[in-house]
């Protein structure tokens, strides 16, 4: 399909909204927009971070998902107790593939589900005693853990358990950090509030633990914030920073440790990849410790080069030379990848609907491959994310917030993109529609996609999805023959 004009895109949105009842239509209309680069403030044309309309198919998660699944889960030497009924922990275990180096069950605990498994009696009599017992058991079974976090599920908030008191008492007993996190799923409209609550818990219980203690610092200390090491992303980013001469003190939180987090206030610059989930703690560190923070983008060579130079500009000439050296080293390899895949992907159209940072950060990587992003949206973004997205996207492209299953399908039916990047809930619906699809939440079980090394994998994955021969075989052979036969007859 040829490119839409602004009027056509607006007409498409109106057509899609037509099926809703009056009230829902009015509400949903505020969440859909046609990009206009001249508007600098997204709040004038898009509403975000609002409760989803009841009855629609939304793809959002809950505060618990944001806190346990995103922020706390990947910290490898902290045991995260899913405090409440068993399901939340069981279904959020390992889904994001936050890689870590360590021995699972001995010194690393990312891929194990620890839960207090609430029963009826715990709801009636309260779960505090059970939590205390659970912490004792954990201490006996996993003595090498460095800390424990208590991730509340909905019932804990509803029955009013005092997890803070248990945490304080037990922390004194076992001599480890125990962090109570009030991330009950009913808080907020999406996982976004969970990120905020998790950041606040880190601020209150962890970040100042080592204030005033000796730390051997260098002028080149940085921390990677908001990289969850999905498929090894943080490692692919880290080697670039180390190659240019920086010292990465902490990884938040993919393959990160409690000690790293406690040492973060000593760094000279915080590098923020996922703005949505970790801007809160960056702002806190900026205020309390005077550490500046910088958003960067490690998707696709163009953006990586820009980011490396921007990061280097905060340091002296040694690092700036280092950045140029790294760029020069990888440029031939990147050119070869683009030369290989660009002819196969040139002009293909992509629609994205993910969370966090991907709908805007991956645009550059797709453009490096000659592809074009014609629609982007977030599950749980706020307006500052859309401010940033509108700059990245072309004019007259679609931007949709918390898009419903129906709307997304209709957009795809009309715009006919060559590739969709979204989550597992959408994946099979679009496979059945015959549209190439990548699950972009955890890189469709591939990765890493960050950094120069990641771009090679990204390009390969996009090529093998878009140009997969299976998309031409979706029609049953007898139906195909009939259709072709008719054509011949005509």
């Amino acid at each position, binding site marked *: 399909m040829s490119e839409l004009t602004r009027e056509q895109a607006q007409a498409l949105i109106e057509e899609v909204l037509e099926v809703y009842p009056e009230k829902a239509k009015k509400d949903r209309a505020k969440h859909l927009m046609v990009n206009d680069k001249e508007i600098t403030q997204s*709040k004038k044309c898009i509403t975000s*971070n609002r409760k989803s309309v009841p009855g629609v198919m939304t793809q959002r998660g809950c505060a618990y998902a944001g806190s346990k699944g995103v922020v706390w889960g990947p910290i490898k030497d902290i045991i995260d107790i899913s405090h409440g009924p068993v399901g939340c922990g069981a279904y959020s275990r390992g889904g994001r593939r936050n890689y870590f180096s360590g021995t699972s069950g001995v010194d690393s605990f990312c891929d194990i589900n620890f839960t207090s498994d609430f029963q009826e009696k715990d709801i009636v009599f309260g779960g505090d005693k059970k939590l205390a017992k659970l912490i004792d058991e954990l201490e006996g079974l996993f003595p090498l853990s460095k800390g424990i976090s208590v991730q509340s599920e909905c019932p804990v908030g509803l029955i009013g358990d005092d997890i803070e008191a248990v945490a304080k008492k037990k922390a004194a007993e076992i001599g480890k950090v125990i962090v109570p996190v009030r991330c009950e799923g009913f808080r907020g409209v999406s996982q976004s509030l969970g990120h905020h609550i998790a950041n606040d818990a880190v601020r209150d219980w962890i970040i100042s633990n080592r204030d005033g203690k000796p730390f051997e610092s260098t002028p080149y200390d940085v921390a990677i914030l908001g990289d969850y090491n999905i498929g090894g992303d943080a490692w692919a980013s880290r080697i670039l920073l180390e190659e240019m001469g920086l010292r990465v003190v902490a990884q938040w939180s993919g393959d990160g440790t409690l000690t790293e987090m406690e040492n973060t206030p000593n760094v000279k610059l915080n590098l923020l990849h996922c703005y949505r989930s970790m801007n809160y703690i960056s702002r806190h560190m*900026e*205020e309390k410790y005077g550490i500046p923070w910088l958003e960067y983008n490690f998707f696709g060579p163009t953006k990586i080069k820009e980011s490396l130079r921007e990061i280097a500009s905060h340091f002296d000439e040694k690092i700036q030379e280092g950045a140029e050296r790294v760029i020069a080293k990888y440029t031939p390899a990147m050119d070869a990848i683009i030369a290989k895949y660009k002819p196969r992907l040139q002009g293909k159209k992509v629609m994205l609907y993910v969370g966090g940072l991907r709908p805007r950060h991956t645009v550059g990587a797709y453009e490096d491959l000659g592809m074009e992003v014609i629609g982007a949206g977030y599950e749980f973004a706020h307006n*500052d994310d859309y401010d940033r997205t509108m700059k990245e996207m072309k004019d007259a492209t679609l931007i949709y917030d918390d898009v419903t299953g129906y709307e997304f399908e209709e957009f795809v039916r009309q715009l006919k993109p060559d590739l969709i990047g979204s989550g597992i809930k959408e994946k099979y619906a679009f496979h059945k529609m015959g549209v190439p699809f990548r699950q972009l939440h955890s890189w469709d079980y591939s990765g890493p996609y960050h950094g120069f090394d990641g771009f090679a994998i990204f390009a390969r994955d996009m090529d093998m999805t878009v140009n997969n021969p299976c998309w031409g075989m979706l029609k049953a052979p007898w139906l195909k023959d009939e259709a072709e036969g008719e054509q011949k007859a005509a």
Partner: protein
Amino acid sequence: MANIMVRKSADGGLSFYLPKRDIEDSIISIEFDTPEKWGGEIRLGNGGIYYIDPIPAPARLPISVRARRVDGVE
């Protein structure tokens, strides 16, 4: 009353951040901006007006202060 954070933005101006609502915006004008007296009425890019009790100018930004919403969007 709400806690807000005032920080220096990249372009050299001041920016306003309301953590509770996750609202970030530029500060267009601030009533008092001298070393002895800082704060007062602040006007935001989105049309909101907040009031900070005047204090001596902070030595370092960002700073978290209590502010009262006078008018406009939140």
